């Protein structure tokens, strides 16, 4: 008969056994227990089956032509932007700190990586960009015009309201740059009087949402601009905001 405590101790060492990181003495001790404990033996077998199943998980192939395209694009992007490429190759001290910064006012050169244009749907860059990445405003009235046009929203002075920027991307994008610019009598709640805010962010394929709590601090008409950039692609939407007295 095995005590629960003994079984518990053995279970805690099964990972070490799988890692082959135990001393011969410890291994012998574990096997002595496993030799007469059906439950622990089953647990070890289950863990081994899981490892086997993990190794058997299929991995799809990249898209046809990916390797050649990616190699050629890496060369082309370096020739277009040698400074960025060299700085990045020694890896991320700078980019890591930038990444942890989150929301920040714009300063210095934009950290935008160049991207292969061939992965975008369509031929001409402009048309491809429009197809691949779309920016919309969220939480504004339905009669608002389509993206890339100015839209109206009415706010009451000093009453916060949450809208959002919805970014539709046909594929996952790494390192997109999102810039929110504010003009007139509006602010983003929690960001004081900052007029321009930027995020460098990864986008999932599909719809990505950036919530924006806005507030009017004066009756002056406001304008909010959301700009998304990724490599050669840019998409922008503007929102005109009328402010009413309470």
């Amino acid at each position, binding site marked *: 008969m095995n005590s629960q405590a003994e079984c518990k101790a053995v279970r805690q060492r099964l990972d070490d056994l799988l890692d082959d990181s135990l001393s011969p003495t410890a291994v012998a001790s574990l096997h002595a227990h496993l030799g007469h404990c059906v439950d622990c033996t089953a647990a070890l077998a289950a863990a081994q089956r899981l490892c086997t199943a993990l190794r058997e998980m*299929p991995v*799809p192939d*990249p898209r046809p032509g990916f390797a050649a395209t990616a190699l050629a694009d*890496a060369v082309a992007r370096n020739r277009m932007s040698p400074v960025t*490429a060299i700085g990045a*190759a020694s890896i991320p001290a700078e980019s*890591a700190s930038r990444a942890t910064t989150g929301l920040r006012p714009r300063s210095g050169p934009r950290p935008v990586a160049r991207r292969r244009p061939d992965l975008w749907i369509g031929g001409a860059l402009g048309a491809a960009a429009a197809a691949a990445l779309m920016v919309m405003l969220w939480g504004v009235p339905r009669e608002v015009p389509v993206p890339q046009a100015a839209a109206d929203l009415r706010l009451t002075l000093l009453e916060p309201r949450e809208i959002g920027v919805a970014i539709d991307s046909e594929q996952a994008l*790494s390192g997109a740059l999102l810039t929110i610019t504010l003009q007139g009598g509006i602010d983003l709640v929690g960001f004081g009087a900052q007029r321009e805010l930027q995020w460098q962010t990864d986008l999932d*394929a599909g719809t*990505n949402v950036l919530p924006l709590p806005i507030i009017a601090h004066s009756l002056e008409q406001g304008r909010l601009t959301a700009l998304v950039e990724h490599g050669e692609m840019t998409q922008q939407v503007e929102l005109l905001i009328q402010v009413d007295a309470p």
Partner: protein
Amino acid sequence: MKPRRDPENPTVGDPVREFERLLAPLIPVLFRHAFRWTAARDQAEDLVQELLVRVYPKVGELAELERVEPWVLRVMYRIFVDQQRRSRNSPVRPMHEAPTTGVASGEDYGDGLADTAPQPAEALERELTQEALADAWGMLNADQRAVIALHDVEGYRLEELATMLEAPVGTLKSRLHRARARLRELLATEPFGAVVRDQLERR
């Protein structure tokens, strides 16, 4: 370290051809790693692409290495970690209600496994096991996927990973064990096969 450069190699002196000679054979391997880490084909391709962009200026150094693969894998892991950190700190979030978003979308783990499964009558248990595993894999966080993929799937030892990932062996060991525990928890695996049978009975 002595360079392995072949004086007869016609690509020497041509960085583009040297780059292609060194990296092209590794792309399938790198993609495989990237896919296991990200659990999504688009993201895996983006990761490999970003790696290639960053290492191209280092082609001269690469040519001097005895083994290129560990070096570029290490760089790719650092890019991956950087991307994950950026993602965690970004206020932008995927709208998961959207049907094409997230790991369950077309070319990611879950659907791909279902598509490639054997005939249902003969292999129902196997198919379900893979499906459950793929779902659980997609629910791990990216760091957990990476450490399990490198150690349990690709067979790197903890000592090798300590160099590659620049973390102490003890830290990696803890991370690996937590990741496995999380995966087992997600699979409700105790034991693994019983859960599969239980799922079969529920259907």
